C-alpha cells in the first residue's frame, strides 16, 4: 500500500493513543498515513459525536409530522398537501473565530448544501450569533466580519436571511458563536437521501475543484480548543464562492427532476472522506474512488490532501448507471464540472486508489460508527450556591423612564436593524414577516399557508441552571412561533459548549440535553437533527453553555399574521398567560442595570405554556387581534416599546396596572409565557371566549393611542416616554 510520510502519529491526526489502538484492532493492522488522517477526521469530536451521543439519545426524535429525523443531512417534516420542510442548524464557531468573514460565509454555504442534499430548495436562513463585549476592538472586528460574511454569501446565493438573534456577553469574548440555520421546501416525492446504493452506480464529485483549503478543519480546528497560535490555523478555514454555490443549487435541483440521481451529499466537514463513507454507510454499500479523477486546483496535491480537503461548493452525486451523459450534460449547462470519481461497490469498504495502486482500504462502518463512545465524567459546578442569591437588595430606580431608555439602547435589547438591513431578507418573495418580528413568516406560494421560523438561545440562563435554562430556551422558541400565529412543529438544535473533557462542562451538557428533551416532549416539538460544537474554549476560559434552538412552525393563513406594531388607537392592550409571575431573578434588567447574572431560573410550566400558546395562535387565526408579541428579554416594557417602535403610525399606549409589586419587577421582570395582544373593542368578547376555552388567563392592561407610552400603577403615573425617544434609544445600541 502507498503511504505518505506527511502525518505519522495519531497525535497529529487529533486522536488519542487508545483510539489509535482501537483503529488497529478494527483494521486488524496499523493504518497507513492516509488512513490515519481519514480516521482522524471521522473519529473527531466534530464528526463522530463521541462525547455527546450517549446523551443525545434522550432527545425525542419522533412525531407524526417527522418524515426524517437525525442521522441524515437534514431533518424533514410533513407539511401536508404533499409538501415538506427540510431544516437544520450548524455551527461554524471555530472558523469564524480565526477568520470571521470567510468563517461565517462558509458556515452559510455548508448548511445550504445540507438542505440541498435532501432534495429541498433552500428558502430561508437564520443566524444565531454570540460575541464578547463590543467595546473590545477585537470583538468589534469579529462582529462586523461575521455580519459581512453572512451578508456577502447569503445575498449572492439568493437565499433570504429572514431572522436570527445576536447576543453580547464577555463569556464569548474569545469564542464567538456563529450558528446558521437553513430551511428548505420540497414536495414529499422529491425527498432525496444521502445514500449510495446499487453497486456499479457511478459516483460524481460536482462543483468546485478540490484545493488545499480546509485541511484538518474538522479534526484540528473544530475539535480542539483555540490557543495563541491560531493565526496559523487560518489555512484550515475555507474560502467561499457563493456564485458557484448558486449554480450548484440550481444544477442539483434541476438534476433531481429526473431519476438519474440516486443520492446526494454535501462535501462539508471532513470533505470527500466523510461524504463517501457516510453515503456508503447509509446504503450498506462500499465505494471505490480513484483520486486521479478528482478535479483539483493544484496539480501536485497528494492523495492525503485530496481526501482531507474541505474545499467549499462541492457535492457528491450518486448517479444511476446508464445516465452518465444526462448527468454530465445537466451540470455542464450550469457551468459545473461533474467528474466521475468512482463507483458504488457491495463490499462495504471505502477503497481509495491512485490509478491501480490502492492507497486506503477501510471498512465503511469502522469510519462512520466505529469511533468509541465516551461517557465522560461529570461534576456539578462548585459555585452553584452563589447563584441562588436573590434580587431584593437592588435599589428601586428613581426614574423608570430613564431605566427603560438605558435598557433599550443596550446591545442585547436594541434594534437589530443595522444588521439585518445588510441581509437580503426579501429575495424569493415569500417573506411575510421580516426580521424584527417575533418569528419570521414565509408564505408557501400557491397556498394560504406558511412557515414560522425562529432561533433562540440563552447562555445566561443555561449557566445559572443548565436544565431549566435549556427548557426555557425551547419554551421561548415556542412562544415566538405562537406569537406570529404559528403551530410549533419541530426543532433542530446546535449545542455549543466548552471542553467536554472538563467534568463541569460535561455536567452542564448532560443537564441541558435533559432539560431540552423534557421540553421538546412536553411541547410536542421533536428534535429532527442538529449539531454539537464542543471545545469553544480558549485556555481556561470557556463559553457559557449555549444550546441554540431552531424551531419551525406551520401557519394556516399567512394573511392573518399581524406583526407586533400597534395598529389602531383605541385598541385594548391585553396580556395573556402567566400574568403575575414575572421576577427580576435571572433577568436582563439585573444583568444590564446592575451587572448581576444571578437568581434561580424559573421552571417551565408546560400546561400554562400550551394554553397560552394556543390562545395566542387561535386569537390570531380567528383574526381577533391587530398585533401580537411575546414578552421575553427585558420584560413588559421592552415588549411594549417594541410594539410602539414597530407601529407604522408611531402609536403609543397607556397602561393601567393594579399591582403591589416593586415597580421594576412589574416593568422589567421576566418569566413564564406572556403575550401582549392588541384587540379592537368589538373583538374583546372573542378573547374572553378563547380565554375560557383554553383556560388561559387574559387581562386588559391598557389602551393603544397617542404618541407616548405611559404607565400608571395603582392610578399613579410612573413612566412616560415618547415613541420617537424609544425608537431613538433602540437605534443607538449597535452603532
Amino acid at each position: 500500500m502507498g503511504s505518505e510520510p506527511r502525518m505519522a502519529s495519531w497525535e497529529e491526526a487529533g486522536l488519542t493513543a487508545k483510539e489509535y489502538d482501537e483503529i488497529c484492532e478494527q483494521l486488524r493492522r496499523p493504518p497507513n498515513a492516509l488512513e490515519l488522517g481519514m480516521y482522524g477526521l471521522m473519529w473527531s469530536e466534530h464528526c463522530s459525536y463521541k462525547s455527546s451521543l450517549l446523551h443525545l439519545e434522550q432527545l425525542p426524535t419522533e412525531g407524526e409530522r417527522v418524515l426524517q429525523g437525525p442521522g441524515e443531512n437534514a431533518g424533514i417534516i410533513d407539511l401536508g398537501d404533499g409538501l415538506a420542510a427540510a431544516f437544520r442548524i450548524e455551527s461554524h464557531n471555530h472558523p469564524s473565530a480565526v477568520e470571521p468573514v470567510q468563517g461565517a460565509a462558509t458556515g452559510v454555504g455548508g448548511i445550504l448544501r445540507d438542505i440541498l442534499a435532501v432534495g429541498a430548495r433552500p428558502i430561508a436562513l437564520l443566524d444565531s450569533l454570540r460575541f464578547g463585549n463590543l467595546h473590545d476592538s477585537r470583538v468589534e472586528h469579529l462582529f462586523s466580519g461575521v455580519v459581512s460574511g453572512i451578508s456577502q454569501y447569503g445575498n449572492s446565493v439568493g437565499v433570504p436571511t429572514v431572522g436570527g438573534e445576536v447576543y453580547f456577553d464577555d463569556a464569548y469574548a474569545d469564542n464567538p458563536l456563529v450558528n446558521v440555520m437553513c430551511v428548505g421546501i420540497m414536495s414529499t416525492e422529491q425527498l432525496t437521501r444521502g445514500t449510495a446504493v446499487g453497486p456499479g452506480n457511478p459516483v460524481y464529485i460536482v462543483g468546485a475543484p478540490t484545493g488545499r483549503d480546509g485541511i484538518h478543519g474538522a479534526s484540528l480546528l473544530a475539535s480542539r480548543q483555540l490557543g495563541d497560535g491560531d493565526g496559523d490555523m487560518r489555512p484550515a478555514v475555507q474560502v467561499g464562492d457563493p456564485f458557484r454555490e448558486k449554480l450548484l443549487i440550481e444544477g442539483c435541483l434541476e438534476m433531481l427532476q429526473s431519476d438519474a440521481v440516486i443520492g446526494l451529499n454535501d462535501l462539508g466537514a471532513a470533505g470527500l472522506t466523510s461524504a463517501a463513507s457516510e453515503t456508503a454507510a447509509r446504503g450498506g454499500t462500499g465505494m471505490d474512488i480513484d483520486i486521479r479523477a478528482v478535479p483539483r486546483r493544484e496539480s501536485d496535491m497528494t492523495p492525503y490532501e485530496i481526501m482531507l480537503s474541505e474545499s467549499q461548493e462541492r457535492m457528491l452525486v450518486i448517479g444511476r448507471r446508464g445516465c452518465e451523459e444526462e448527468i454530465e450534460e445537466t451540470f455542464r449547462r450550469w457551468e459545473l464540472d461533474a467528474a466521475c470519481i468512482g463507483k458504488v461497490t457491495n463490499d462495504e469498504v471505502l477503497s481509495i486508489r491512485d490509478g491501480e495502486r490502492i492507497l486506503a482500504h477501510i471498512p465503511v462502518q469502522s469510519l462512520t460508527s466505529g469511533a468509541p463512545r465516551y461517557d465522560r465524567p461529570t461534576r456539578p459546578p462548585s459555585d452553584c450556591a452563589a447563584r441562588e442569591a436573590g434580587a431584593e437588595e437592588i435599589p428601586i430606580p428613581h426614574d423608570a423612564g430613564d431605566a427603560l431608555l438605558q435598557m433599550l439602547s443596550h446591545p442585547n435589547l436594541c434594534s437589530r436593524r443595522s444588521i439585518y438591513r445588510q441581509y437580503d431578507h426579501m429575495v424569493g418573495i415569500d417573506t411575510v414577516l421580516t426580521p424584527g418580528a417575533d418569528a419570521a413568516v414565509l408564505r408557501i406560494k400557491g397556498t394560504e399557508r406558511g412557515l414560522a421560523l425562529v432561533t433562540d438561545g440563552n447562555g445566561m440562563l443555561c449557566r445559572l441552571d443548565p436544565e431549566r435554562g435549556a427548557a426555557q430556551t425551547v419554551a421561548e422558541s415556542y412562544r415566538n412561533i405562537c406569537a406570529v400565529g404559528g403551530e410549533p412543529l419541530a426543532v433542530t438544535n446546535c449545542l455549543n459548549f466548552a471542553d467536554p473533557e472538563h467534568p463541569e462542562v460535561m455536567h452542564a451538557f448532560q443537564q441541558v440535553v435533559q432539560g431540552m428533551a423534557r421540553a421538546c416532549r412536553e411541547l410536542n416539538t421533536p428534535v429532527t437533527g442538529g449539531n454539537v460544537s464542543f471545545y469553544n474554549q480558549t485556555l481556561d476560559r470557556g463559553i457559557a453553555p449555549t444550546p441554540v434552538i431552531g424551531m419551525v412552525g406551520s401557519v394556516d393563513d399567512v394573511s392573518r399574521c399581524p406583526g407586533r406594531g400597534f395598529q389602531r388607537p383605541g385598541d385594548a392592550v391585553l396580556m395573556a398567560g402567566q400574568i403575575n409571575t414575572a421576577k427580576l431573578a435571572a433577568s436582563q434588567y439585573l444583568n444590564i442595570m446592575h451587572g448581576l447574572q444571578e437568581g434561580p431560573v424559573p421552571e417551565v410550566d408546560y400546561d400554562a405554556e400550551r394554553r397560552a400558546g394556543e390562545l395566542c395562535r387561535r386569537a390570531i387565526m380567528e383574526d381577533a387581534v391587530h398585533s401580537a408579541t411575546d414578552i421575553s428579554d427585558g420584560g413588559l416594557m421592552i415588549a411594549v416599546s417594541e410594539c410602539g417602535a414597530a407601529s407604522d403610525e408611531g402609536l403609543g399606549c397607556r397602561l393601567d396596572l393594579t399591582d403591589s409589586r416593586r415597580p421594576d419587577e412589574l416593568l422589567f421582570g421576566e418569566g413564564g409565557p406572556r403575550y401582549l395582544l392588541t384587540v379592537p373593542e368589538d373583538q374583546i368578547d372573542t378573547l374572553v371566549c378563547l380565554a375560557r376555552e383554553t383556560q388561559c388567563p387574559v387581562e386588559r392592561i391598557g389602551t393603544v393611542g397617542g404618541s407616548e407610552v405611559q404607565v400608571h400603577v395603582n392610578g399613579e403615573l410612573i413612566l412616560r416616554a415618547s415613541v420617537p425617544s424609544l425608537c431613538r434609544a433602540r437605534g443607538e445600541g449597535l452603532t
Partner: protein
Amino acid sequence: MCGGVIVQFCVVTYPGSNCDRDCYYVIGEVLAEPVRYLRHWAEHVPRGTSCVVLPGGFSYGDYLRPGAIAARMPVTGAIEDFAAGGGLVLGICNGFQILCEAGLLPGSLIVNDHLAFSCLPVHVRVEGDPSPFTHSLKQGEVLRMPIAHRDGNYRPPSDGAQPQVALRYCSPAGELGEDYNPNGSQYSTAAITNERGNVMGMMPHPERCAESILGGEDGMRVLQSAVDWWKEVGSYGI
C-alpha cells in the same frame, strides 16, 4: 379596444441571477401575462416577445464588476437587437447594472456611498416624460418599493450627457434630499430610461412589492404600465 393583444414577457436567467424566479412568478401569476425564461446563451429573443426583463441577483457572482461579465453574453446582444426594434427592456437591480455595462443605458452604478449592502423599503417619485414603464403613473406620484443592493450609486456618463431619469428617491411626501437617498446616487436617481424610452433600468425591485401580503403593490403599477402601454401603443409600432 386592447382585446386580443398578447403581451409576452421573457425573463433572462444568467448564471447567478437570483430574482429570475421571482419575476417569473409575479409576471405569470400576479400580472397574469404569458412569460418564459431566456437563458444567457440564447442568440435571439423569441419572436412575439413584447418585454424582456433582466432580473436582479449576482450574475457571475458580481466578479470583476456587477453586470460586467453578463453584459458580454450572447443574450445581451440579442436584447440589444430586440431593443433596437422597439421591444421593451426592463433591467431590475443587477439587470440595471448589466444594461449599463452593455451600453444600452448611459452611465454606471458604483458602490453605495456607505459601502454596505442595503435591503429596505424606500420611496421613489415618478419623473420626466412618460415612458412605457411609467405610462399609467402620474408625474410626481410617490411609490414605495424595496431596494436590495450594494452597488446602486448611479453616476451619469462622463461626457456630461444627462440621462432621462424615470424615478428618484424621495421622502414619503415626495421631497428630494440626501436623507432619502439610500446610496448616494447623483440627483437621487433610482431609475433611468434610454432616449427612446423603451429600455428602463431601476434599482428598486417591483417584483418584491406586487402583492399586498408582502406589504405593498406599488411594484405592480410599474409592470402594469408596461402591459398597458404595449396594449395601447406599443403593439402598433413605436
